[in-house]
């Protein structure tokens, strides 16, 4: 097969050493944060320890992921340089675990995903409930390499493992009145520190909710992912199951989903609730519609290498996934951002 992806076993091995070294370095940075004025200086920088990490930073055991069986699907992004796994799994927005980019990897390792329950309900003929094991065994798993564009103007290229959302929706048999699909993240303040305090959680009203139009949900690109880089998802990336909608800004791709409900009305979404003039329901990647506070015309692609290897590239409409354009044929995408 025309596949550039490295053998997943060798990747894993590299990964282990990489991660150990990486962690060591982070620890050194953290320790620096303990010295007098130094700690003030470091206050809340994401590279070092924040003022509120000082007492909470026991180094906990890493969440265990396991290898998955899947077939590899050739995608549009297959020839793009992959974002290294250590970056894709350590630089995350998952406010349930804190607003810093490395808060999720630091605070999510003890997330308990087994048992899990994901229900598909609402306007369907046959509601479904999937257990943890069902997530991996109900549908054939595929590996698809997608571009991920964050609303903050950076992007990654990630090999996801999962299946089309359409598969599960079809199985539940939507009623003809179903027009939208809403999603909900786990609500468990005991496990998710961001849900316990508005300070840690960035002022978000939890649980995190997202939504799609039914035709967007049925688009074959729209995927429920249960793994990345050949293995089950780590918690910072949304274990055990998350949405991936590659032509929309990353915040649409809701993590750690417990509930999918088909509805006849457009469901509320977390970021739209927070700042409706900045984040719309659609949130399609669109270089021509800037975020009110920053430009969306270009993006920084996160791959290997330090400061000098950074590459800025043009952002493409629909993140390069032109096949979804017909979904929005007669819509004013400036109005429906």
């Amino acid at each position, binding site marked *: 097969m025309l596949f550039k992806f490295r053998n997943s076993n060798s990747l894993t091995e590299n990964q282990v050493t990489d991660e150990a070294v990486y962690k060591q370095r982070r620890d050194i940075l953290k320790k620096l944060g303990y010295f007098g004025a130094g700690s003030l200086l470091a206050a809340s920088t*994401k590279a070092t320890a924040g003022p509120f990490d000082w007492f909470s930073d026991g180094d906990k055991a890493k969440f265990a992921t396991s290898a998955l069986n899947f077939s590899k699907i050739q995608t549009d992004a297959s020839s793009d340089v992959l974002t290294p796994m250590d*970056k894709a799994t350590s630089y995350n927005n998952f406010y349930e675990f804190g607003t810093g980019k*490395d808060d999720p990897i630091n605070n999510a390792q003890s997330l308990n995903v087994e048992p899990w329950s994901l229900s598909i309900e609402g306007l369907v003929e046959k509601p479904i409930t999937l257990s943890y094991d069902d997530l991996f065994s109900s549908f054939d798993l595929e590996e698809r390499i997608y571009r991920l564009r964050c609303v903050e103007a950076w992007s990654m290229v990630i090999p996801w493992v999962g299946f089309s959302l359409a598969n599960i929706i079809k199985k539940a048999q939507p009623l003809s009145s179903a027009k939208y699909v809403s999603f909900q993240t786990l609500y468990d303040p005991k496990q998710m520190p961001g849900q316990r305090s508005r300070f840690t959680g960035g002022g978000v009203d939890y649980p995190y909710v997202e939504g799609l139009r039914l035709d967007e949900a049925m688009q074959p690109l729209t995927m429920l992912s249960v793994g990345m880089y050949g293995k089950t998802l780590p918690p910072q990336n949304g274990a055990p199951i998350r949405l991936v909608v590659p032509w929309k800004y990353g915040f649409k791709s809701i993590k750690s989903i417990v509930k999918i409900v088909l509805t006849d009305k457009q469901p509320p979404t977390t970021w739209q609730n927070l*700042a409706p003039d900045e984040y719309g329901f659609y949130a399609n990647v669109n270089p021509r519609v800037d975020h009110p*506070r920053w430009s969306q015309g*270009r993006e920084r692609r996160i791959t290997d290498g330090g*400061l000098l290897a950074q590459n800025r590239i043009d952002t493409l409409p629909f993140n390069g996934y032109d096949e979804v354009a017909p979904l929005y044929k007669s819509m004013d995408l400036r109005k429906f951002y």
Partner: protein
Amino acid sequence: MLKINKPIRVNPTFMQVIRLLGHGFLVMWLAMVFYQGFTDQLGGDPVQSLLDFTGIGALNLLVISLIVSPLAMHLKFAQLLPFRRPIGLYSALYALSHFYVFIAFELQFELKLIVSEIIERPYITVGFVTLLILIALSITSINAIKKWMGAKWFTLHSLAYVAVILAGLHYLWLVKSAWYEPAIYILFSAFLSILRRTKIKKIFK
């Protein structure tokens, strides 16, 4: 409140050592974090980490430089006062590095974009004005210029309080939703300005 009557006085050599350590620490730390950025040891997105590090560094140093006077007065510890200038200068250095990271690594010297971002994005405009103030204060902190400016110097340097509030505003404006931390900075800066209100009034009179 704790009432301190006796002025504090310590061995000048000790203060000198603290000063040198401070220099070493602030220079080394900045250099080390840049080095880590160049060698890809700064997490998922080294550009973002550096922006955050230098931004927060500049803001914290600015706040500390403004705490020195009230603290020295309260403790009757006059030997603290000479620390104001170097701390302020380091704040400017960190702010300049912050700006450099933004234009060199975030925007990668796309000139048109640099100009349009500074003009069009309120939070960047505010950051830019803050930076200009810090640069002006740094240049005029040279002794000869200070002497030459006379009383005007004090008026100009009250702008440090404007700068710290603008920096807080810049921070508040750029966060997506976690506004508590920047809000604390702004409140604290406002408190410092109130302690100094007579001086501030001069700018607006």
